[in-house]
Protein backbone atom coordinates (compact mmCIF):
# COMPACT_ATOMS: atom_id res chain seq x y z
CA UNK A 1 0.00 0.00 0.00
CA UNK A 2 1.54 3.25 -1.08
CA UNK A 3 1.36 6.58 0.70
CA UNK A 4 -1.02 7.78 -2.03
CA UNK A 5 -3.55 5.08 -1.14
CA UNK A 6 -3.09 5.51 2.60
CA UNK A 7 -3.75 9.23 2.32
CA UNK A 8 -7.01 8.54 0.45
CA UNK A 9 -8.33 6.25 3.18
CA UNK A 10 -7.14 8.67 5.88
CA UNK A 11 -8.90 11.64 4.23
CA UNK A 12 -12.06 9.59 3.70
CA UNK A 13 -12.13 8.41 7.31
CA UNK A 14 -11.72 11.98 8.62
CA UNK A 15 -14.34 13.28 6.18
CA UNK A 16 -16.97 10.67 7.02
CA UNK A 17 -16.26 10.71 10.76
CA UNK A 18 -16.63 14.47 11.07
CA UNK A 19 -19.74 14.40 8.84
CA UNK A 20 -21.28 11.78 11.15
CA UNK A 21 -20.46 13.93 14.18
CA UNK A 22 -21.97 16.97 12.43
CA UNK A 23 -25.34 15.25 12.05
CA UNK A 24 -25.39 13.55 15.47
CA UNK A 25 -23.97 16.03 17.99
CA UNK A 26 -26.63 17.83 20.00
CA UNK A 27 -24.76 21.11 20.37
CA UNK A 28 -25.58 23.23 17.33
CA UNK A 29 -22.35 25.25 17.47
CA UNK A 30 -20.25 22.08 17.58
CA UNK A 31 -22.26 20.64 14.70
CA UNK A 32 -21.30 23.67 12.61
CA UNK A 33 -17.62 23.22 13.53
CA UNK A 34 -17.72 19.52 12.63
CA UNK A 35 -19.35 20.48 9.33
CA UNK A 36 -16.43 22.83 8.73
CA UNK A 37 -13.93 20.00 9.22
CA UNK A 38 -15.98 17.76 6.95
CA UNK A 39 -15.97 20.38 4.18
CA UNK A 40 -12.20 20.81 4.61
CA UNK A 41 -11.99 17.03 4.21
CA UNK A 42 -13.86 17.24 0.91
CA UNK A 43 -11.42 19.93 -0.20
CA UNK A 44 -8.55 17.62 0.80
CA UNK A 45 -10.12 14.90 -1.34
CA UNK A 46 -10.11 17.31 -4.29
CA UNK A 47 -6.45 18.09 -3.62
CA UNK A 48 -5.80 14.34 -3.52
CA UNK A 49 -7.50 14.01 -6.93
CA UNK A 50 -5.25 16.87 -8.15
CA UNK A 51 -8.10 19.19 -9.12
CA UNK A 52 -6.65 22.14 -7.24
CA UNK A 53 -9.02 24.71 -8.69
CA UNK A 54 -12.13 22.98 -7.35
CA UNK A 55 -10.40 22.46 -4.00
CA UNK A 56 -9.62 26.18 -3.79
CA UNK A 57 -13.21 27.09 -4.70
CA UNK A 58 -14.47 24.61 -2.10
CA UNK A 59 -12.36 26.21 0.63
CA UNK A 60 -13.22 29.78 -0.38
CA UNK A 61 -16.96 29.33 -0.86
CA UNK A 62 -17.89 26.58 1.58
CA UNK A 63 -15.42 26.95 4.42
CA UNK A 64 -15.02 30.70 4.12
CA UNK A 65 -18.59 31.57 3.17
CA UNK A 66 -21.32 29.09 3.95
CA UNK A 67 -19.98 27.83 7.28
CA UNK A 68 -19.45 31.39 8.50
CA UNK A 69 -23.02 32.20 7.43
CA UNK A 70 -24.30 29.14 9.32
CA UNK A 71 -22.28 30.11 12.41
CA UNK A 72 -23.77 33.61 12.34
CA UNK A 73 -27.28 32.25 12.09
CA UNK A 74 -26.54 29.90 15.00
CA UNK A 75 -25.45 32.90 17.07
CA UNK A 76 -28.57 34.84 16.04
CA UNK A 77 -31.10 32.12 16.76
CA UNK A 78 -29.77 29.97 19.62
CA UNK A 79 -29.27 30.59 23.29
CA UNK A 80 -25.67 29.70 24.14
CA UNK A 81 -25.09 26.29 25.66
CA UNK A 82 -28.55 25.09 24.76
CA UNK A 83 -28.68 21.47 23.62
CA UNK A 84 -30.92 20.33 20.83
CA UNK A 85 -33.66 17.91 21.91
CA UNK A 86 -32.80 14.30 21.23
CA UNK A 87 -34.77 12.63 18.45
CA UNK A 88 -37.03 9.82 19.56
CA UNK A 89 -35.66 6.30 19.49
CA UNK A 90 -38.13 5.16 16.83
CA UNK A 91 -37.17 7.99 14.53
CA UNK A 92 -33.45 7.40 15.04
CA UNK A 93 -33.68 3.66 14.37
CA UNK A 94 -35.94 4.00 11.34
CA UNK A 95 -33.75 6.77 9.87
CA UNK A 96 -30.66 4.63 10.42
CA UNK A 97 -32.33 1.67 8.72
CA UNK A 98 -33.43 3.84 5.77
CA UNK A 99 -29.94 5.33 5.35
CA UNK A 100 -28.23 1.92 5.64
CA UNK A 101 -30.65 0.33 3.16
CA UNK A 102 -29.94 3.11 0.66
CA UNK A 103 -26.19 2.80 1.26
CA UNK A 104 -26.17 -0.96 0.68
CA UNK A 105 -28.34 -0.62 -2.43
CA UNK A 106 -26.06 2.04 -3.91
CA UNK A 107 -22.95 0.03 -3.06
CA UNK A 108 -24.39 -3.00 -4.86
CA UNK A 109 -25.15 -0.79 -7.87
CA UNK A 110 -21.59 0.59 -7.84
CA UNK A 111 -20.16 -2.94 -7.64
CA UNK A 112 -22.28 -4.14 -10.56
CA UNK A 113 -21.71 -1.09 -12.74
CA UNK A 114 -18.11 -2.05 -13.41
CA UNK A 115 -16.84 1.51 -13.79
CA UNK A 116 -13.08 1.53 -14.10
CA UNK A 117 -10.72 4.42 -14.52
CA UNK A 118 -9.53 4.92 -18.08
CA UNK A 119 -6.01 5.79 -16.93
CA UNK A 120 -5.71 8.63 -19.43
CA UNK A 121 -3.93 11.65 -17.95
CA UNK A 122 -5.91 14.59 -16.63
CA UNK A 123 -3.91 17.78 -17.12
CA UNK A 124 -5.84 21.01 -17.05
CA UNK A 125 -4.08 24.14 -15.96
CA UNK A 126 -5.92 27.20 -14.72
CA UNK A 127 -5.48 29.06 -17.99
CA UNK A 128 -7.31 26.43 -20.02
CA UNK A 129 -10.05 26.00 -17.40
CA UNK A 130 -10.66 29.75 -17.47
CA UNK A 131 -10.75 29.97 -21.26
CA UNK A 132 -13.25 27.10 -21.41
CA UNK A 133 -15.39 28.58 -18.67
CA UNK A 134 -15.80 31.88 -20.51
CA UNK A 135 -15.66 30.42 -24.00
CA UNK A 136 -18.59 30.34 -26.39
CA UNK A 137 -17.42 27.56 -28.70
CA UNK A 138 -17.13 23.82 -28.06
CA UNK A 139 -17.12 23.03 -24.31
CA UNK A 140 -17.66 26.71 -23.62
CA UNK A 141 -19.64 27.56 -20.53
CA UNK A 142 -20.16 31.31 -20.97
CA UNK A 143 -23.98 31.13 -20.98
CA UNK A 144 -24.35 29.09 -17.74
CA UNK A 145 -21.76 31.37 -16.15
CA UNK A 146 -23.87 34.44 -16.93
CA UNK A 147 -27.06 32.69 -15.82
CA UNK A 148 -25.45 31.82 -12.48
CA UNK A 149 -24.34 35.41 -12.02
CA UNK A 150 -27.96 36.55 -12.55
CA UNK A 151 -29.08 33.88 -10.08
CA UNK A 152 -26.62 35.13 -7.45
CA UNK A 153 -27.82 38.70 -7.94
CA UNK A 154 -31.45 37.60 -7.59
CA UNK A 155 -30.59 35.57 -4.49
CA UNK A 156 -28.83 38.55 -2.88
CA UNK A 157 -31.78 40.86 -3.56
CA UNK A 158 -34.16 38.17 -2.33
CA UNK A 159 -32.16 37.73 0.91
CA UNK A 160 -32.30 41.45 1.62
CA UNK A 161 -36.03 41.54 0.85
CA UNK A 162 -36.73 38.54 3.12
CA UNK A 163 -34.54 39.49 6.05
CA UNK A 164 -35.46 43.17 6.04
CA UNK A 165 -37.53 44.10 9.04
CA UNK A 166 -40.59 45.70 7.45
CA UNK A 167 -42.81 48.14 9.41
CA UNK A 168 -45.85 45.89 8.91
CA UNK A 169 -43.97 42.92 10.40
CA UNK A 170 -43.14 45.02 13.47
CA UNK A 171 -46.83 45.88 13.81
CA UNK A 172 -47.66 42.18 13.60
CA UNK A 173 -45.10 41.42 16.29
CA UNK A 174 -46.58 44.01 18.58
CA UNK A 175 -50.18 42.87 18.09
CA UNK A 176 -50.05 39.16 17.30
CA UNK A 177 -53.76 38.80 18.03
CA UNK A 178 -54.76 41.52 15.62
CA UNK A 179 -56.31 39.87 12.53
CA UNK A 180 -55.63 42.91 10.32
Amino acid sequence: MTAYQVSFYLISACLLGTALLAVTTRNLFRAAIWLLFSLVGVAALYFWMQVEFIAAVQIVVYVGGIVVLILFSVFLTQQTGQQLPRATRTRRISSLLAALAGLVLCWLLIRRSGLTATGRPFHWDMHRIGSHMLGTGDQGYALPFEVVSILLLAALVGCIAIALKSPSAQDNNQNPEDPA
Partner: protein
Amino acid sequence: MIPLSHILAVSTALFFIGVYGLLTRRNLITLLMSVELILNSVNINFVAFNKYLFPERLDGLFFTLFIIAIAAAEAAVAIAIVINLYRSHGSIDVEDSRDLKY
Protein backbone atom coordinates in the same frame (compact mmCIF):
# COMPACT_ATOMS: atom_id res chain seq x y z
CA MET B 1 -4.09 3.26 -7.57
CA ILE B 2 -7.44 3.62 -5.84
CA PRO B 3 -10.31 2.03 -7.77
CA LEU B 4 -13.04 4.44 -8.80
CA SER B 5 -15.61 2.44 -6.85
CA HIS B 6 -13.95 3.37 -3.53
CA ILE B 7 -14.31 7.10 -4.26
CA LEU B 8 -17.95 6.49 -5.21
CA ALA B 9 -18.42 4.55 -1.97
CA VAL B 10 -17.09 7.51 0.05
CA SER B 11 -19.45 9.92 -1.71
CA THR B 12 -22.38 7.50 -1.23
CA ALA B 13 -21.61 7.24 2.48
CA LEU B 14 -21.46 11.04 2.74
CA PHE B 15 -24.81 11.27 0.92
CA PHE B 16 -26.52 8.88 3.30
CA ILE B 17 -24.99 10.56 6.36
CA GLY B 18 -26.69 13.70 5.05
CA VAL B 19 -29.95 11.79 4.55
CA TYR B 20 -29.73 10.45 8.11
CA GLY B 21 -29.30 13.98 9.42
CA LEU B 22 -32.19 15.20 7.29
CA LEU B 23 -34.46 12.50 8.73
CA THR B 24 -33.50 12.80 12.41
CA ARG B 25 -32.94 16.53 12.89
CA ARG B 26 -35.76 18.95 13.58
CA ASN B 27 -33.83 22.21 13.61
CA LEU B 28 -33.78 24.21 10.37
CA ILE B 29 -30.07 25.07 10.57
CA THR B 30 -29.07 21.43 11.02
CA LEU B 31 -31.32 20.50 8.11
CA LEU B 32 -29.42 23.06 6.03
CA MET B 33 -26.12 21.48 7.11
CA SER B 34 -27.37 18.04 6.01
CA VAL B 35 -28.32 19.45 2.62
CA GLU B 36 -24.80 20.89 2.29
CA LEU B 37 -23.33 17.43 2.99
CA ILE B 38 -25.56 15.90 0.30
CA LEU B 39 -24.52 18.54 -2.24
CA ASN B 40 -20.87 17.89 -1.42
CA SER B 41 -21.25 14.16 -2.02
CA VAL B 42 -22.70 14.91 -5.47
CA ASN B 43 -19.76 17.22 -6.19
CA ILE B 44 -17.27 14.47 -5.32
CA ASN B 45 -19.01 12.20 -7.83
CA PHE B 46 -18.90 14.80 -10.58
CA VAL B 47 -15.20 15.48 -10.08
CA ALA B 48 -14.30 11.78 -9.84
CA PHE B 49 -16.22 10.89 -13.01
CA ASN B 50 -14.66 13.82 -14.84
CA LYS B 51 -11.13 12.95 -13.76
CA TYR B 52 -11.21 9.18 -14.17
CA LEU B 53 -13.73 8.52 -16.96
CA PHE B 54 -13.56 11.59 -19.23
CA PRO B 55 -10.21 13.26 -18.56
CA GLU B 56 -10.19 15.07 -21.92
CA ARG B 57 -13.33 17.06 -21.08
CA LEU B 58 -14.18 19.58 -18.33
CA ASP B 59 -17.97 19.32 -17.94
CA GLY B 60 -17.86 17.64 -14.52
CA LEU B 61 -15.63 20.39 -13.12
CA PHE B 62 -17.98 23.09 -14.39
CA PHE B 63 -21.03 21.30 -13.01
CA THR B 64 -19.26 21.19 -9.65
CA LEU B 65 -18.51 24.91 -9.82
CA PHE B 66 -22.12 25.75 -10.66
CA ILE B 67 -23.43 23.47 -7.91
CA ILE B 68 -21.16 25.26 -5.42
CA ALA B 69 -22.41 28.66 -6.60
CA ILE B 70 -26.06 27.59 -6.40
CA ALA B 71 -25.45 26.03 -2.96
CA ALA B 72 -24.07 29.37 -1.75
CA ALA B 73 -27.16 31.20 -3.05
CA GLU B 74 -29.42 28.57 -1.51
CA ALA B 75 -27.68 28.80 1.88
CA ALA B 76 -27.97 32.59 1.89
CA VAL B 77 -31.71 32.52 1.07
CA ALA B 78 -32.32 29.71 3.58
CA ILE B 79 -30.59 31.61 6.36
CA ALA B 80 -32.56 34.76 5.57
CA ILE B 81 -35.76 32.70 5.86
CA VAL B 82 -34.54 31.08 9.11
CA ILE B 83 -33.78 34.46 10.69
CA ASN B 84 -37.13 35.83 9.57
CA LEU B 85 -38.89 32.76 10.97
CA TYR B 86 -37.06 33.11 14.28
CA ARG B 87 -38.10 36.76 14.43
CA SER B 88 -41.78 36.00 13.87
CA HIS B 89 -42.18 32.65 15.68
CA GLY B 90 -39.33 32.66 18.20
CA SER B 91 -38.28 29.15 17.20
CA ILE B 92 -36.60 27.48 14.24
CA ASP B 93 -37.89 23.99 14.96
CA VAL B 94 -39.76 22.59 11.96
CA GLU B 95 -42.47 21.22 14.25
CA ASP B 96 -43.24 24.73 15.52
CA SER B 97 -43.64 26.37 12.12
CA ARG B 98 -47.05 25.12 11.06
CA ASP B 99 -48.50 28.21 9.37
CA LEU B 100 -47.15 29.51 6.09
CA LYS B 101 -48.59 32.99 6.51
CA TYR B 102 -48.18 34.87 9.76
